[in-house]
């Protein structure tokens, strides 16, 4: 099953490689990994999407907790949460495609953030399946380039991950 693991980690050099090294050394799967400092610059927040059986996910959280730099680990998928991913798509936008591309972007509540005579860059936010759906909805031959941030997530309501 797909799990979203949220981590608070000391914002120190090499902290990221301790986490990625753990995953590769133990053969765990990483679908995506995002990391950035929090409002407290001494801490980074990391979101990892991994796929594995319950036993494997349990081991992953235990092994992560064992890393000295890691302050807290939470499996967001255990309860209600919000997840988002940002995607930038550069598409060919000429002739009749130009209008059509704008329309589809609007339907997906995307924004066009760069315009040239022949291309758009569309910014889209949502969960992973929404972004996938957008890519399916447009003519793939028009896609010039895509980049995605990977998932970040947060628990709903009272569920707070903080030191």
């Amino acid at each position, binding site marked *: 099953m797909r799990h979203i693991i949220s981590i608070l*980690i*000391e914002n120190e*050099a*090499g902290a990221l*490689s*301790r986490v990625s*090294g753990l995953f590769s*050394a133990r053969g765990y799967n990483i679908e995506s990994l995002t990391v950035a400092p929090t409002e407290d610059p001494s801490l980074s927040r990391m979101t990892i999407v991994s796929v594995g059986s319950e*036993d494997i996910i*349990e*081991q992953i959280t*235990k*092994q992560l*907790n*064992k890393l*000295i*730099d*890691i*302050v807290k680990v939470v499996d967001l998928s255990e309860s209600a949460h919000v997840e988002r991913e940002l995607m930038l798509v550069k598409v060919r936008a000429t002739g009749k495609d130009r209008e059509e591309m704008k329309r589809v972007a609007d339907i997906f509540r995307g924004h066009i953030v760069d315009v040239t005579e022949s291309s758009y860059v569309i910014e889209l936010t949502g969960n992973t399946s929404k972004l996938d759906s957008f890519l399916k909805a447009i003519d793939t031959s028009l896609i010039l380039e895509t980049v995605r941030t990977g998932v970040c997530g947060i628990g709903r309501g009272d569920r707070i991950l903080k*030191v």
Partner: protein
Amino acid sequence: MQLTGAEIVIRCLQEEKVEHVFGYPGGSVLFIYDEFFKQDQIKHILVRHEQAAVHAADAYSRSSNKIGVCLVTSGPGVTNAVTGIATAYMDSIPMVVLTGQVPTQYIGQDAFQEADTVGITRPCVKHNFLVKDVKDLAVTIKKAFYLAKTGRPGPVLVDIPKDITAQKCDFHYPKTVSMRSYNPVVKGHTGQIKKAVQLLLEAKRPMIYTGGGVILSDAADKLTKLTRQLGYPITQTLMGLGAYPATDKQFLGMLGMHGTYEANMAMQECDVLLAVGARFDDRVIGNPDHFARNPRKIIHVDIDPSSISKRVRVDVPIVGNVPDVLDEILKQIEATDGKPEAKPLAAWWKQIEEWRSINCLKYKMGKDVIQPQYVIEKLYEVTGGDAFVTSDVGQHQMFAAQYYKFDKPRRWINSGGLGTMGFGLPAAMGVRFANPKAQIACVTGEASIQMCIQELSTCKQFRLPVKIINLNNGYLGMVRQWQQMFHGNRYAESYVDALPDFVKLAEAYGHVGIKVEKPADVEPALREAFVKHKNELVFLDFIINPEANVFPMVAAGKGLSEMILAEDL
């Protein structure tokens, strides 16, 4: 007062009451060595290869409850040390490794003797640090000692660039250190312990299985008390030997791939299993699916949550420090006034005695050829069962574990997890520095001993009267055994040709060498080594049966109860 980084290193070690540092100098650590030269509180032990420095520091920890410390230079110093660090990591040995690094401004420029030490060692240390500011040096070393010995112990490495060792700052050594990201659990959950006690008292076919965690946490006394109070059978892993007296009736011997028939059968057939400081690894329970075929309730006590339910599903997990948890179990048992039911326990013991009666460790001994088991039995007799025994890896290691009955913890020093050949001799050096009056035997083979043979020179320099018990069969014995059993007798590259004359070799290093070829000479030679040459290193080269095998054996991937016993049983 302002001190240089190098002075700070020495002061920190003094504050930690470090008496010995095993190491090898080089360019990046010259300032630190200069400070060693100027003091005499800490003794530096110069080894002949960095791997040996780490093994010696590791065994120093294993054989005492002090923390071994080693110091090596950057680049090749570190890469040579990696095998030793990984060895300690796999067996959760507390150790502090100090490494030199090229000056800060050269890091990342492919400087002479530069290696990414923090990167290379990351997967085989509990934690590591690169010190980038001399002001962080003292607190980093404090953290290293704190991390190494608390929680699940392990090696911690501090990488110190050369310029940091020359810079000055005020010295203050913190008394304590706390880290918001590191809070190891000590006390076990009382509710869980209650469940465990209930299960233990209701058991019909109970079994206690313990590992290195009991030794590392100095909980042997508590384990012995609990085991005796319950009257239950107990077995130990290779890493756990000595935590319960091996000469006691309740002890069933080691379990696992080369465990005794009775220990493995009882492990498979028990209905309640108390696992303490052990991790159900592949060499211990064999195939986990086969192990799970017999229904049993498992109580697992360990300080590391990730060791629990990793390979085997556990019914009552108890995360905590072993002695604290054992104390609580004992307290609760005494409070309930409960005793296990006598009748089923007697029937269980009857079954175990039947298994024991096949005498799975018996072997045939003639007049012409020395059997390796016999050498270990005689070693046990001659040393009065009271030696520290280090070993390398292979058949000799298993024979030592099977035939030397360890009654005390921290006496059996071997590389269980990583299985590092070359460990035995440097380990014996470390044991000697931690236990200056001890009798020390290094049980090894002609292949393993050659992996760190250069340390005979260190032993001469520091007058270390280690007795090397070389079980010489001319083969990589365990490899040959597997080739015989699983690869159609094709002995690919397992015969070691062109062996040195070990007697002359020992003499060349300034030691005593004795070659033993007849069974009748085994005991006299051992006595000569341990009595006549008490204060010298003696290299005993026992020419043994070249095709002796280790039995019982659970083949890789097989179930624990699917043992292969000696052919002549």
